[in-house]
């Protein structure tokens, strides 16, 4: 039994690299996802992934299949969109979701235009849908660095961030940290999406950020516990997804995200907090 779980990783270095990449990704992205969910911005990850796509595509068209160019392009495009949307939301009548939608659509359209002007050479979907099976050293270092930056930054701005999630008006009334916290948090979202884009592809990067975070809601209530559950769920799902890809002969990226999805469904049904099962069963005294 144990042998079935470990054999692929022992025999093949590409499986070990994939596992290490997923571990790094699972340490950075799900905590960011937890805060996104708490702030009711779950769909923002999806919007941001579209904002990144054209940046990465531009990087690819300018410099070819270069990790640096595509990541830098994605990072710049994502941060520009996130920061502009944040500034507009804070200084005009437009709300965050509306201003973000406006900016990411413009960004996406610009990207599609640039891609088609140059003509499709290597199919861009192939390039943009990542290859967790082909992580080389620079890609692993990039993902690891992003996870490190994310965890450090979250630790530093943990308090204002939690306040911003739970009572933003209070934070604004006692401190000027609100706006910087918000902007820096958006930068973290973009950074992690760029990291996930290396491993799983732009769209699935959102999956590993958010699915474990919403899964965690059925298991924990306090923020630190939410983060721990999300990280464990993300890494567990990644490892299982890789094994699924190995034994069942299915592509790895979708296998990982679908495993996250199964974890979510199971939690939704039988998780200890607020799941369907809990709502059907009569509550015990003082347990609600």
């Amino acid at each position, binding site marked *: 039994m144990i042998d079935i779980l470990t054999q*692929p990783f022992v*025999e*093949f*270095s*590409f*499986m070990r*690299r*994939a596992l290490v990449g997923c571990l790094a990704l699972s340490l950075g992205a799900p905590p960011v996802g937890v805060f996104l969910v708490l702030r009711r911005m779950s769909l923002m990850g999806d919007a941001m992934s579209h904002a990144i796509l054209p940046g990465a595509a531009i990087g690819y068209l300018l410099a070819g*299949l270069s990790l640096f160019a595509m990541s830098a392009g994605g990072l710049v495009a994502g941060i520009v969109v996130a920061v502009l949307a944040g500034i507009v939301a804070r200084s005009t009548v437009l709300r965050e979701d509306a201003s973000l939608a406006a900016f990411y659509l413009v960004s996406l359209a610009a990207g599609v235009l640039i891609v*088609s002007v140059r*003509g*499709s*050479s*290597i*199919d861009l*979907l*192939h*390039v943009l*849908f990542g*290859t967790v*099976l*082909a*992580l*080389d050293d620079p890609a692993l270092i990039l993902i690891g660095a992003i996870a490190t930056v994310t965890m450090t930054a979250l630790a530093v701005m943990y308090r204002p961030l939690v306040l911003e999630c739970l009572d933003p008006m209070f934070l604004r009334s006692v401190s000027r940290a609100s706006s910087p916290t918000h902007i820096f948090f958006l930068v973290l979202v973009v950074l992690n999406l760029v990291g996930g884009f290396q491993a799983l592809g732009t769209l699935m990067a959102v999956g590993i950020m958010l699915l474990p975070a919403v899964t965690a809601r059925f298991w924990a209530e306090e923020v630190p516990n939410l983060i721990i559950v999300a990280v464990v769920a993300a890494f567990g799902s990644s490892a299982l997804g*890789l094994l699924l*890809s*190995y*034994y*069942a*002969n*299915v*592509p*790895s*990226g979708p*296998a990982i995200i679908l495993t996250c999805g199964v974890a979510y469904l199971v939690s939704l049904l039988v998780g200890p907090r607020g799941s369907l099962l809990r709502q059907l069963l009569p509550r015990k005294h003082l347990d609600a």
Partner: protein
Amino acid sequence: MNRRLLLYAATFIVPLLIGSVGANAADTIKVATSFSILGDMVKQIGGDRVEVKTFVGPNGDAHVYEPTPGDARTLADSKILVVNGLGLEGWMSRLQKSSGFKGTVVTATKGIKTRQMEEEEHGTTRKITDPHAWQSLTNGRVYVQNIRDGLVAADPAGKDAYEANAKKFLADFDDVEKIVKDSIAKLPPARRKIITTHDAFGYFGATYGMEFIAPEGVSTDSEASAKDVAKIIRQIKAEKVPAVFLENVTDHRLLDQIARETGAKIGGTLYSDALSDANGPAATYLDMFRHNIQTLTAALSS
């Protein structure tokens, strides 16, 4: 009819009408081809009697391509459309319909003995036809004949010119084929085995006696699973495959990883489904063969 519909009609139909009126004015025969290899063949055979437009250009991937409105206009303008067939250009039937193309379609692979490939997918094997027939010069000759006949049928006045061009072109085939055969004969049989990114060299291998192994299937639009990659790594190690080769049309990150893990060396870039641009090493169909065989033998004989 509402206003939006009118607007669509104006943007798409009007240019098509203008395009088809303009087509008759020119002296040359307008030929549209699906990808660069067919484009080169038509140029060689048609000479200056034809004007060739190619949808998927140099280094482009003909398996997956999204036609543009400009392509539809080009096609509506053309008298002949040359396609490979055998399921290579899945996007072409839609383009043909939407453009209102009224000319003749020449299928270059007509009459070729096709190769069936077994592709394993989710546990079940299914048979599919390998479309990469041009990778064997034997088939290439059939391509030339089909294109020649198609041109003659559409433009009987140019019969002599087309036949002369085709004859000259086919004579060059013999030279190149001799180079290919001689080069492979010089390789030790144990080293006639290589890895490429997708199954594009099945006909080449069958005709000239080499074995090609690829993590992606015959089309580039499938994604490799961990199992596929593991299988290939085991195979490379067990059979001591000396080199892996990149292709000009596909993403090479996966192959880099395989090479790193097995210690097989990266032998260079093969041109499989598209030619290079005019300054590249494989600007024409025959140059592609010369370049590929040179790359193969350089890596395998050392």
